[in-house]
């Protein structure tokens, strides 16, 4: 009876185990410095994977490989069922519009206002939308990050936390299926960090996105992670739920949770 019930649950949630991102044997070196030495990971649909590791372990390089910003030396990367290595720009761009990327600094276009930052991307990929519809989309997405009143501000007028929120809004405006966060709370105070972490959780719940979050902030990891991976010496050293890793007997793993 119980197994029958489990079968029903599995049928009702068929995407639970659908791999969205699959990385196999990923290698990347810069000169003589081998950063990635055979990374293997899978992220399933609707899952938030947190990657931890010391600076320079290749966490950011890994997610930059996923969007084609860095070309790996060896290995395979499949995103939404398509192998991305070797794709031409046009083919890669079709996948890129389904991936949002939040940069460490927010990476807002300095010469454009907040409205123009959001409009710039949206106009290119939603040509059927009228000016009024674009305006509505922009206000909606700004409201979702709690910054609707910053619409006419320039990036130089925004605080670090606001820049990250606007960066996130710019990421969300194309309604991505996957979001890659590169150290979303770095350089922010504790309260703002918590707000950003809660925003990540909120986005996942409301938009059903799949995410990879690179962070050093353990409270962010605790709040957002469905699963945690720890990188060491260019490979995955440990993997599991936050609470499992917290109790790990491995000294290196435990050092992250102190």
């Amino acid at each position, binding site marked *: 009876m119980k197994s029958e019930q489990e079968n029903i649950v599995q049928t009702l949630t068929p995407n639970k185990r659908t791999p969205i991102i699959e990385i196999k044997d990923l290698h990347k070196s810069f000169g003589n410095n081998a950063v990635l030495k055979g990374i293997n990971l899978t992220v399933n649909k609707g899952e938030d994977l947190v990657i931890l590791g010391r600076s320079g372990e290749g966490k950011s390089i890994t997610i930059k490989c996923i969007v084609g910003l860095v070309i790996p030396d060896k290995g395979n990367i499949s995103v939404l069922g398509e192998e991305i290595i070797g794709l031409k720009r046009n083919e890669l761009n079709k996948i890129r519009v389904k991936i949002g990327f939040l940069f460490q600094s927010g*990476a*807002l276009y*300095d010469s454009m206002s907040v409205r123009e930052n959001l409009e710039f991307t949206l106009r290119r990929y939603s040509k059927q939308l009228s000016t009024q519809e674009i305006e509505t989309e922009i206000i909606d997405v700004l409201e979702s990050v709690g910054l609707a009143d910053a619409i006419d501000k320039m990036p130089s007028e925004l605080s670090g936390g606001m820049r990250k929120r606007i960066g996130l809004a710019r990421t969300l405006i194309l309604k991505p299926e996957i979001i890659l966060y590169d150290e979303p709370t770095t350089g922010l105070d504790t309260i703002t960090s918590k707000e950003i972490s809660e925003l990540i959780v909120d986005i996942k719940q409301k938009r059903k996105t799949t995410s990879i979050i690179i962070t050093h902030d353990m409270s962010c990891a605790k709040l957002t992670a469905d699963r945690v991976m720890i990188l060491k010496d260019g490979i995955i050293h440990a993997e599991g739920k936050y609470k499992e890793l917290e109790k790990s007997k491995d000294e290196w793993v435990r050092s992250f949770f102190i």
Partner: protein
Amino acid sequence: MPILYLKNTFTDIGDATLFTKKFFKEVFIPPYETKEFFKQCYLIGYKSLPLVALTGFIMGLVLTLQTRPTLATFGAESWLPGMVALSLIREIAPVITALICAGKISSGIGAELGSMKVTEQIDAMEVAAINPFKYLVVTRILATTLMVPLLVIFADAIGILGGYAGITIHSDVNAYRYISQVFQSLGFIDIIPATIKTFFFGFFIGMIGCYKGFNAANGTESVGKAANSAVVTASLTIFIIDMLAVQITDLFF
């Protein structure tokens, strides 16, 4: 050490050649960034007008004042309008205006793109499926290629006006007579080769600024280096192009 320097120089020239090749490949492929191109034309052309006007006027004025005593020695003061016009149009206005543009525009582009690179704005464009080369580089190179010749023509006109101001300091010359003498001394052979070379000046000013900025290393220090290197390289390139242009003009005309 000199071998390493030579190796780096040749590597840089090779990379710049590939960058230029990429420009010619991307420039013809749609979509065309028309709005950004016109914005850059406005920023590069219109915003440089006051600077070019001021330097153009001073060029004409100083050239007249410096040349007058020598011509007066030989009793050839009447040649002054023609001589000033020829010097300005064939050489001085194109080179000085191009050097000013190298200082203002090439360094500006180098610093702007360098800062965008360092703050990951170029990467942000790339991951948003926007071609940053097409949006940032192609538009700027096209704008400088078109705007620098127009700025030089403007500097020519203002320079001739400055020459008239210089002449009227010492003698009372009718403006109509001055302009007539200027046009009598000029032929298409003076104007066309001088204008053609300004397109090359404009192209290289844009290309070098974009190349230096787009390839800036990480870190804020590299933004300053990109801007500085853009000015030095663009200025040197202007002199090299000018030397080649004069040789070619000499051969064919």
